[in-house]
């Protein structure tokens, strides 16, 4: 209460208004402007991140400010609590710009915000901006009535700072504001108070409390703030009915509606028109992509429609970009929205890069630039947001249950009545429930053809059962192998021992494999004293039969891991055997004697990481880890040792669909790697450290987010390849330059002296010159075909002839 408040004896005391009367404050003379405005709420340590380097982060205050209504308007009173949104300003001001008002901001930051402000604090009015300020200055203050929406991203793992982007009704986006909650005195206090008072550290939305929640609370006191039903990151401010409608519907990437108009506009000759046309696809077509781009752009540069249309007049515009803008091919590029998006993202990066360079000429030291090159940059943050969009589509990720599965098949003929792709899409995104698995897996593993009828499948299964019995009989009835002398017998018994050893240590924590109550059939077995169970015995028989079925490969360690989930789902040896055979069709290359298949996949992974994340690749190279051996286990048995049992089933059926790629497992690997990028970059310097770290991820990896991330990575990869192809087809080589340069900017520009490895520097240079090379193994990742072993290895099964075959 005013009476109780004693202002401290400081120069800022003159800004305090001890009266509740609104009319008073405008009469107080401010030193610089002649008047003051009411600082209602503020929060400290809200940063703008103008560049990827943390060094450039600018600390400031986000504030809700009440200004004096223009004369003629009915004066509002504090008691009525009615303040016109046009008299409220949402502002961000850098600490450095506050001058003597800084102390007031600090004070207001620490006030209790659970009730409306009782005390009036006056500060100098910030300059009002409804559009964006010119490049170089980030501060803004916008009347709340002019705010169209807020894009709100709470902090999450991998994205440490929560952020808010303010979009004005004029179509501008202000720089993303990052809430460094760990530094913000008020957020720390509020967070503590919540824990203490309610035992509830979670905010209104059920998520962890963070600084941005407070900003929403401030605004909600004065205006209606509606969270979009569809775009959960979007909060509409005083939305119209239309706004609500458009954000309540499913986001559709509208690639057609805006296009005709754009092209029409683009055909105009004015430079500004072209620039506007270039911008149109992403301001119009997007709803879902909007957030992605705006936040990203806001982060790297002050980028808005307005600045874009002014760009051609901007003397700082890099000549390459200017040229690009005027190139008709650029316009045709937009026909594909996705490519335009990619292109625009690169373009924005180019602008950021250019302005960074401009500044570097003046103030940046070489070390600063080096650090920036090395820092973990936003490439993957785009991805993060993309992943968020994928995640948002909850319906697609619903588990396929028996009702849904049955609805796809003709009741009488048992023929599939939707397309195979539709089935695969559902399973890829949603997975199957356990009843569906017994049927769906047989299709996914190519035991049943998709176009078969019920009767055909029954007949097929009958013959498969007979065949299994026949194969099993081959070794079961062959006494010469069981007991006979000679190499064949010796090899077979070795294999049998190997299988027995492995089966007895495979998934024994799973109930059906746990029991040891059955006496071992073979008294000479090393397990004869321990006992076994029927499922373990079935496992052994199936693996021995596979050893018979695929004589060139035989049983190899790891196969028991692949069979166990399949057997557990079917619990029928013949059915499980053929499903396993189907799985082995794609896994066979993992087990080749010369390990060529594993090597090929590790090499592909190496190329994939180099293409997708050159900075990380560079780091791994320095850590002598680009052999990617630490992913050996994940690739060999498809994450069997990394995930819990149920997750393994879910992951495998996803990958079996080949919905996006026949080698989707490599994108899963990339997703795991990328998830731990920051730790790897910051803390792991040597091969043994990386290996240990990756090995110990076992049991800690969250499947759903990994799948989502892998999917986003696949799309990103696909766009990268497409962009590369398009670039190679560009008519004018000159225009292609900036895009090429951007792609591998970091790899290319790292000083060779830093790595001390001339080979890698040369690699980087090559990439710099030609753009990323899309090697054949990489291109193959776009294919939905699985990689089969074409030629069987010669004579592998013949025991005793190789170098050390006895041990195999």
């Amino acid at each position, binding site marked *: 209460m005013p009476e109780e408040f004693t202002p401290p004896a400081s120069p800022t005391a003159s800004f305090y208004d001890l009266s509740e009367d609104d009319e008073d404050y405008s009469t107080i003379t401010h030193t610089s402007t002649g008047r003051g405005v009411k600082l209602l709420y503020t929060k400290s340590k809200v940063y703008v991140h103008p560049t990827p380097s943390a060094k450039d982060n600018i600390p400031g205050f986000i504030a809700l400010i009440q200004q004096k209504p223009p004369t003629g308007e009915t004066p509002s009173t504090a008691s009525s609590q009615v303040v016109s949104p046009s008299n409220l300003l949402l502002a961000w001001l850098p600490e450095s710009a506050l001058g003597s008002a800084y102390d007031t901001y600090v004070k207001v930051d620490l006030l209790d915000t659970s009730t409306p402000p009782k005390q009036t604090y006056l500060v100098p009015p910030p300059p009002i901006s409804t559009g964006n300020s010119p490049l170089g200055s980030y501060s803004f203050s916008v009347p709340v009535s002019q705010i169209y929406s807020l894009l709100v991203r709470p902090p999450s793992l991998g994205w440490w700072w929560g952020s808010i982007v303010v979009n004005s009704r004029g179509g501008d986006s202000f720089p993303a504001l990052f809430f460094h909650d760990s530094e913000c005195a008020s957020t720390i206090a509020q967070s503590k108070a919540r824990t203490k008072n309610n035992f509830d550290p979670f905010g209104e939305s059920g998520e962890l409390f963070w600084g941005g929640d407070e900003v929403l609370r401030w605004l909600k006191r004065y205006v209606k703030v509606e969270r979009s039903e569809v775009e959960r990151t979007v909060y509409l401010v005083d939305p119209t009915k239309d706004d609500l409608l458009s954000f309540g519907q499913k986001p559709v990437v509208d690639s057609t509606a805006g296009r005709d108009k754009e092209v029409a506009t683009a055909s105009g000759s004015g430079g500004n028109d072209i620039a506007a046309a270039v911008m149109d696809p992403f301001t119009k077509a997007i709803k879902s992509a909007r957030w992605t781009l705006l936040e990203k752009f806001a982060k790297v540069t002050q980028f808005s429609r307005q600045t874009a249309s002014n760009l051609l007049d901007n003397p700082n515009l890099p000549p390459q970009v200017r040229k690009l803008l005027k190139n008709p091919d650029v316009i045709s590029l937009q026909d594909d929205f996705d490519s335009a998006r990619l292109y625009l993202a690169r373009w924005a990066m180019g602008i950021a890069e250019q302005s960074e360079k401009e500044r570097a000429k003046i103030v940046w030291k070489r070390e600063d630039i080096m650090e920036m090159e090395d820092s973990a940059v936003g490439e993957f943050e785009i991805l993060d947001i993309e992943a968020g969009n994928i995640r948002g589509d909850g319906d697609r990720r619903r588990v396929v249950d028996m009702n849904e599965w049955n609805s796809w098949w003709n009741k009488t003929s048992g023929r599939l009545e939707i397309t195979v792709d539709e089935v695969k899409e559902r399973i890829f995104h949603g997975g199957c429930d356990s009843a569906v698995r017994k049927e769906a897996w047989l299709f996914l593993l190519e035991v049943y053809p998709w176009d078969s009828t019920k009767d055909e499948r029954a007949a097929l299964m009958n013959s498969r059962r007979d065949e299994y019995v026949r194969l099993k009989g081959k070794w079961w009835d062959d006494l010469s192998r069981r007991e006979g002398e000679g190499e064949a017998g010796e090899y077979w018994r*070795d294999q049998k021992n*190997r299988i027995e*050893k*492995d089966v007895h*240590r*495979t998934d*024994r*924590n799973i109930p059906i494999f746990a029991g040891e109550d059955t006496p071992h059939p073979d008294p000479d077995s*090393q397990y004869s004293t321990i006992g076994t169970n029927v499922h373990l015995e079935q496992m052994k028989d199936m693996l021995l039969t596979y050893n018979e079925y695929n004589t060139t490969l035989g049983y*190899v*360690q*790891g196969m*028991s*891991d692949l069979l166990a989930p399949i057997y557990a789902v079917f619990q029928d040896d013949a059915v499980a055997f053929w499903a396993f055979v189907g799985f082995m069709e794609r896994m066979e290359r993992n*087990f*080749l*004697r*010369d*390990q060529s298949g*594993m*090597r090929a996949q*590790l090499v592909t992974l190496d190329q994939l990481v180099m293409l997708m994340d050159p900075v990380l690749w560079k780091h791994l190279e*320095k850590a*002598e880890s680009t*052999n990617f*051996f*630490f992913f*050996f*286990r994940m690739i*060999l*048995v498809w994450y069997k*040792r990394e995930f819990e049992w149920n997750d393994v089933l879910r992951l495998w059926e996803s990958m079996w669909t080949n919905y996006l790629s026949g080698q989707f497992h490599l994108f899963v690997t990339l997703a795991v790697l990328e998830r731990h990028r920051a730790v790897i970059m910051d803390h792991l*310097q*040597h*091969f*043994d450290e990386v*290996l*240990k770290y990756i*090995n110990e991820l076992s049991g800690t990896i969250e499947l759903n987010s990994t799948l989502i991330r892998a999917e986003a990575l696949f799309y990103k990869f696909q766009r990268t390849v497409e962009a590369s192809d398009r670039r190679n087809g560009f008519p004018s080589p000159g225009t292609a330059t900036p895009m090429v340069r951007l792609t591998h900017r970091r790899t290319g520009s790292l000083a060779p002296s830093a790595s*001390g490895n001339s080979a890698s520097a040369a690699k980087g240079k090559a990439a710099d010159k030609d753009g990323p090379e899309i090697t054949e193994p990489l291109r193959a990742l776009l294919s939905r075909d699985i990689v089969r072993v074409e030629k069987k290895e010669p004579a592998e099964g013949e025991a005793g002839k190789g*170098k*050390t075959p*006895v*041990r*195999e």
Partner: protein
Amino acid sequence: MSSRKKVLLKVIILGDSGVGKTSLMNQYVNKKFSASYKATIGADFLTKEVLVDDRLVTMQIWDTAGQERFQSLGVAFYRGADCCVLVYDVNNQKSFETLDSWRDEFLIQASPRDADSFPFVVIGNKIDVDDGKRQVPQKRAMAFCQSKGNLPYFETSAKEAINVEQAFEGISAVIARHALAQEEAEEYTGDFGASTIVDIGADSERDGCAC
């Protein structure tokens, strides 16, 4: 000179599948035994601080997959090894017979400079199993070790924690003895370059100048 000595001792465990490599490592480092270890895929390691000649050093013990074909991609972790431990199962004749080829395989893959004097240790594991099942008599194992240049030999049970500590102490001793021999040889020849495994300081190697 001594300050440049390696502080990280790298020990590689090799041997047939199922002889107990993982169990030995875990028994030594964690003093634990589990009957439900899964077959090792790829490679992993554990570390333990040990005293060697009154110096505290870190022993990094690498456990590998036992199926031979999986060794071919493992060159990365063979490199810079200070000792190789060959393990067999005393109840499994075959696992004993393959020791020689495991040794050869290691020498090929790791290609240590001093192949002739490189420290190997042989361990016969699973001595807790009934005597009646034992397939490799101690005498025979010792004869083998003698013939390969007096390789130190230990018989252990990772399950019952018999002799495991002693075996790894033996490994430390072998490394120390080898290091000393290397040092003397260098002093004798006056070669102070970072040319032997022992004298490549761990730090300098890690900084990437020893490639």
